[in-house]
């Protein structure tokens, strides 16, 4: 986004802040996926604040703007009602699948089956990757303590999403797929989850420094397909803090 002159005080405050504040500023500047009308209204309302005393106040002001109209600024991270969904899908770059293999499992793959450790997943023939995936899904997976995009939907709803996986990656501005040949989709049951969800949003980088928007996506980041139930907030996808889950299956989808 281009920060207009009337918000230069706000920009200067963030510049003076700590590394996290600077990262948030970087996120905002490098986010090229925000629709123009959203961008204009955001900065127009932000310029009305005159208490840009510190970087923290500057961030709070920006958060206040997006919370003032959650529908326009896309839901502002409301919590998703878990009861709405039966099945959880999660998408990750194909090369990350190897990262889910525990040391103990790596040893088994090497000693019992003679498979290499830390190899490039895409270098292996598909029958072997299928076999490894089958082995991985036997144990619970810990997805790590960071935010992820997941889909919280019934499988019928998910099918159109999964059929156009590249479009979904672009729509959500997901990074890490550029040089990937395949995406991994993990399926698990709602009962496996202990963590809560929040919906992704336009301008998510404003109060979360670790968020890094894609810079060259063609779609508007955070725009999502509508679902019908009101408790679903019109969004089939959500973000959650990951936990240990037992996946029911893992599918690999070609991205090319």
């Amino acid at each position, binding site marked *: 986004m281009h920060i207009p002159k009337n918000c230069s005080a706000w920009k200067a405050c963030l510049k003076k802040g700590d590394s996290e504040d600077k990262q948030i500023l970087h996120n905002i500047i490098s986010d090229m996926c925000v629709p123009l009308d959203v961008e204009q209204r955001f900065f127009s309302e932000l310029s009305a604040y005159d208490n840009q005393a510190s970087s923290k106040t500057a961030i709070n002001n920006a958060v206040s703007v997006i919370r003032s109209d959650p529908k326009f600024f896309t839901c502002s991270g409301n919590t998703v009602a878990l009861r709405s969904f039966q099945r959880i899908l999660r998408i*990750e*770059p194909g*090369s*990350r699948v190897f*990262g889910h293999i525990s*040391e103990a499992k*790596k*040893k088994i793959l*090497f*000693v*019992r*089956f*003679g*498979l*290499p*450790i*830390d*190899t*490039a997943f895409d*270098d292996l023939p598909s*029958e072997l990757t299928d*076999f490894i995936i089958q082995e991985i899904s036997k144990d619970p997976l810990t997805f*790590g303590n*960071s*935010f*992820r*995009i997941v889909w919280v939907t019934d499988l019928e709803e998910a099918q159109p999403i999964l059929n156009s996986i590249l479009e979904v990656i672009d729509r959500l*501005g*997901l*990074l*890490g797929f*550029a*040089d*990937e040949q395949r995406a991994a989709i993990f399926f698990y049951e709602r009962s496996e989850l202990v963590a809560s969800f929040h919906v992704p949003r336009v301008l998510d980088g404003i109060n979360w420094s*670790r968020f*890094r928007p*894609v810079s060259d996506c063609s779609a508007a980041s955070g725009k999502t397909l509508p679902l019908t139930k009101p408790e679903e907030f019109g969004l089939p996808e959500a*973000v959650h803090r990951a936990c240990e889950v037992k996946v029911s299956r893992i599918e690999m989808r070609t991205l090319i």
Partner: protein
Amino acid sequence: MISQREALRIFASQAATNEPELYPYNILTQKNSTFMYGWFDFPAEDILVQCLKNPETPPWIFDAIIAACKKVGAEFSYKLLSPKKDDLQDGQTFPLERLLRLVHLVKLGELQSLLLALMASIIPRARDFPGLARSVLSAFSAYPQKQSDAVFWEEYIEIPDFAAFAFRQLVSINPNSPQIKENLKELWKKQLKQNWEIDAAFLTEELLNKIGITRVMDIFESIKSQDIALFNEIKKTIENRAQFDPRIVPIKEQMEKAYPKALKELFNTSNIVYMLNREPPICIEELNTKLSGISEQLKSVLIEISNIEVYTSSASWQSAILPDGAMKKPTSESPKKYVSEN
């Protein structure tokens, strides 16, 4: 994985130009070295991997990464050569593990001599650092293998933790080598007789993909002629595995075709002794339980040679016996005798 373009951008923005190898060195040696990219966290050495793979990487970045790799490699080679294990406690080998992963993934000729040097340091300490040994052999296997490398892998066939991996390398070098036949035979023996933790059925299937079922069956035939007990165990193992592993089904089917059950069962002494010692009559349900898995053809042969009357159900069997245990004389209403479909 992070894109090559983004990796280059991160490297260029982070590395100080006066000492550019410091940044890749830190990535390899600092604890908890991961980075967040989009929604995912990646191992930090992925930045180095992608820079090395990117043909547009400027020479100063490429050279800085290679120099950092060599520095880390040299430091650890020195530590591994030290007879004191204390120099490398558990958990302190992570920079070497990262380096080996990098060397494995980039497959660069510039790093091959470093890899060979690391192998020379790690392999003699394989007992102390089995994880490192697995990593270095995996990295080595990613580089083109020559016919002469077969001699190297042959040595590992004899070591339980490396045997399966070495076998797959030998298959990739020359699946038609006469030695492969001996190796597979040996691996089956080690698994079934010495309880090695290898999966010989999986390895057989891997070999089958390269040389075809006919040649795999030749190997089994050779095992059968030399060691029938081992052969029978292999057959049983394959039958069991095929129940839950579809990869093994073609081998099982081929074995059943080549070695039909009837032949083996006909001369199975325990079956014959059971039938000859059995007090007549017998009902087919009990017969089926006792001789489970037996073919219809063999069943009829056994019934014939043992001269036992077999009835179609326990009810008809019971009604064929008088209260004093004697058999009823045959009448037009006699219980129905079992007649094999064959």
